């Protein structure tokens, strides 16, 4: 991993079109400003990782009957209407 030291208001550039600027530093928190092309997705790592994990857990590991799922939903509809 490349490690760089930056001060407030200094930036780094990644490739030709991604710039990350240190906007503020205070009490153990760093505020970053990121400029990147629209098709580059930027996320806090924790949420990105959580969604990767959620998808992995969602991959089905047995036969799942849509009919059974529909039955749950139908139950829901009936009760909501009633």
């Amino acid at each position, binding site marked *: 991993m490349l490690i760089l030291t930056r001060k407030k208001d200094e930036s780094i550039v990644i490739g030709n079109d991604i710039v990350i600027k240190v906007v503020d530093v205070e009490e153990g928190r760093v505020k970053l400003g990121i400029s990147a*092309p*629209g*098709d*580059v*997705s930027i*996320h806090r790592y924790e*949420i*990105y990782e*959580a*969604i*990767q*994990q*959620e*998808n*992995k*857990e*969602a*991959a*089905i590991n*047995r*036969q*799942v009957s*849509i*009919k*059974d*799922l*529909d039955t*749950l*939903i*139908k*139950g*829901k509809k009936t*009760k*909501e209407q009633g």
Partner: protein
Amino acid sequence: MKLNTRFFGELEYEKEDLLHFPSGLLGFEGCKEFIPIDNPDGVGVFRWLQSADRPELAFVVMNPFFVMADYEFEIPEGVVETLRLKRPEDTQVLAVVKIPDDLKKMTVNLRAPIVINTKTKSAVQVVLEDEKYSLKHPVASSMQDAG
């Protein structure tokens, strides 16, 4: 075209049916093509997504508006560009469902919806920055509350 799948046996599909995920699904970045499978007897809320790259990989997805009628989010500009979305009526939204052993406890990921351009069949799983939607929204909760 034919694919010998783990859960659906031999599946016959047309190339035009494929959904293309240019970035894959999060956690499955290499899986870029999925076959949507509808249950002919279903009520149209749930469907399967079978990976065309990995025969053993499939997901249940659902219409998120069913669990939350006022579900809404802004599609990030980059996603609109990637999908070349031009008209709202070409847009479809699905959400990934997690099925535990107890079906009543199944949850749907409203934080990372799948946005599809139905004209071009391209799709992106969008991560919403807004924290108001849960990764594990209970599907059958109102049923349990009522019961």
